[in-house]
């Protein structure tokens, strides 16, 4: 009877020992994982900060204005284009209202005079800061990590040749 108890106890001890070590190694592995994840988060946060700064730098109003003038037909909104209230919307049966076909609302391509840089391979005499922005733009463009920018640029270039 006692012998049986002893054997059982021994078995429990061995099992507990094995279990404990298993648990310990498991915990260490998970801890390692947590550490890796933490450093990954840190690295990601750092990357997000850099990208946010980069994005802000690229989306400076100054630069967007230059790019907008070069590639878009859009111009700043004039007060006359904004309808303040629903009463100001002219009715269709008003004879002074011009009714246009829906497909007439295409983007007006800027005339070469207003946007000389629209020609392929534009080489305007750039202001120093624009040169710097352009250089930086090229840099980012050649960075394989920035394929989004490359895509945008390709779209814009294709548009240019249309």
């Amino acid at each position: 009877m006692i012998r049986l108890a002893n054997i059982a106890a021994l078995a429990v001890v061995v099992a507990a020992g094995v279990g404990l070590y298993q648990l310990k190694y498991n915990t260490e592995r998970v801890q390692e994982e947590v550490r890796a994840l933490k450093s990954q988060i840190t690295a990601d946060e750092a990357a997000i900060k850099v990208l946010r700064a980069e994005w802000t730098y690229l989306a400076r109003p100054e630069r967007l204005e230059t790019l907008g003038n070069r590639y878009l037909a859009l111009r700043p909104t004039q007060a006359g284009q904004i309808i303040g209230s629903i009463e100001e919307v002219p009715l269709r049966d008003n004879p002074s209202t011009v009714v246009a076909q829906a497909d007439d609302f295409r983007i007006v391509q800027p005339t070469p005079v207003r946007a000389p840089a629209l020609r392929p391979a534009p080489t305007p005499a750039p202001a120093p800061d624009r040169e710097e922005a352009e250089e930086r733009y090229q840099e980012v463009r050649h960075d394989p990590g920035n394929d989004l920018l490359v895509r945008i640029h390709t779209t814009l270039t294709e548009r240019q040749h249309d």
Partner: protein
Amino acid sequence: MISGQRPSPDRRDAPPPLARGARRFRIDGVRKEAMEVARNRVLVTAAMFFIGFVVMGVRLLDLGFFERVVETTIAAQGRAPVLTARADIVDLNGVVLATNLKTASLYADPKRVIDVDDALDKLQVALPDINRADIVNRLSADSRFVWIKRNLTPAEKWRINSLGIPGFAFEDEDRRVYPQGRLAAHVLGFVDIDGRGLAGIERFFDSRLMNPHSLHEPLKLALDVRVQHILREELANAVDAFSAIGAAGLVLDARTGEVLSMVSLPDYDPNEPKASRKETLFNRAVQGVYELGSGLKTFTVAMALDSGHARLESTYDATKPLKIARFTINDYHAKARWMSLPEVFIHSSNIGTARMGMEIGAETQRAYLDRLGLLKRPQIELTEAAEPLLPHPWREISTMTVAFGHGIAITPLHLAAGMAAVVNGGRLIPATLLAQDADNSTSVEARRVLSSETSATMRRLLRLAVIEGTGGKADVPGFEVGGKTGSAEKSAAGGYRRNALLSSFIATFPTDEPRYVVLAIIDEPKGTPETFGYATGGWTAAPVVGRVIARIGPMLGVSPRQDQENAIRNALLLPVREE
């Protein structure tokens, strides 16, 4: 419960109830009795161990199955450590104005560079602007650490990494970066090499930005980079066009006091404050005090109406220059006749406003200026903000000159904040660079300085000054701009310089329900053929304000309206003579 099983000690030591029986076995041997005692003791010990193990087992099960709390708190502590030593600064829309970045700097260990020429050939591909001879020279030094280039861009770092040159490595450095460059330089200020704020917001909120508990919380300013860009661009164009020496501009929310834009030209790049000339660090909008001239006539007219010293029908003798003591007060746009109060205002008559000032008297004038905040340091989150220069003593002649904006030097911010109070219904709201919560606009600390009737009249007068008077070039169809020009001769030793003007225009729009106050000041503009040689506020600063309003109006959601020119005229019923 379990302790009940434990035999009490006295029960063991006392003669057992079976003593008689035991005595019977005594013959069998003393040993047997000893065995009995030992067995009892072992049983007791075993029982105690058993209880111990049961307690531990229960606790183990408890920990393993039920106490999940322990586990989750450990997981929750997994917040990544703080990256940088300074919080970000963002604008009203969350656009980054200042941030801290870990930048990589390239260094080399000369002992481990195998082939200097080959390494530099490769490096030149990634960094075309390096000075080759200099680096060769430095690499030959007897050292284990040589800087090659500090603060690389991520793209440069990526290119160098892809080359894999032995002996070259990166070191991370923490650096304050201003992605918008010069755009908001004077508002933001800059930091020193250790990241301590030396100017602007960086200095005023230094402890807030460095506070470890709020590092993740960016400081949100009221500034709007789009508005800032537009104001800066238009002012810079004006500085170029009129060969001026500088300019300053402000856009204020008339209802909350939020500064949407603050520009001072020339400016500097806060990323490289040391590379700029010292005078560019000067913030003209809050640091410079100027005799701003006619813009202050707005306050004189407002206080004359508010204190009851004048009514719209009051007339003033502007037939000839006003002589007092050794001074002569002239009109720039001289009409040489009696003028009604609205005429005095829209034609910017110095003589008329000087007479108005005399009627008001020094005491009342001072009281009103004090309430408008013009007699003390402007309230703003910038340590640079300057004290105004006041006449001392405040004589009769001071009262007259202050009435048309001379003999008192205030900052542009004083003028803009005072103007906001005049047009927003008469409440002075302290100007602030921090974004205010949209819903607590009622809790904004506001002091009534003028009656709302005076404010309403002033709005119409300002509108009239644009329709009929000197500010015509600031008008934008649909936005109902109202404003006042100012062209002050700059003072020099012993008098004023006729050809050195400080031309300004202070405006508000839309005048029926003012939302914004826009101020543009151009320092020493020179007339051009397009302006027929004029360099006054109406020709230089007013067009700037007009263009700024035309661009920011739609952006800020001000809905354009039909012009109510006739309505304003009728409401005023003014005797304004058509010229």
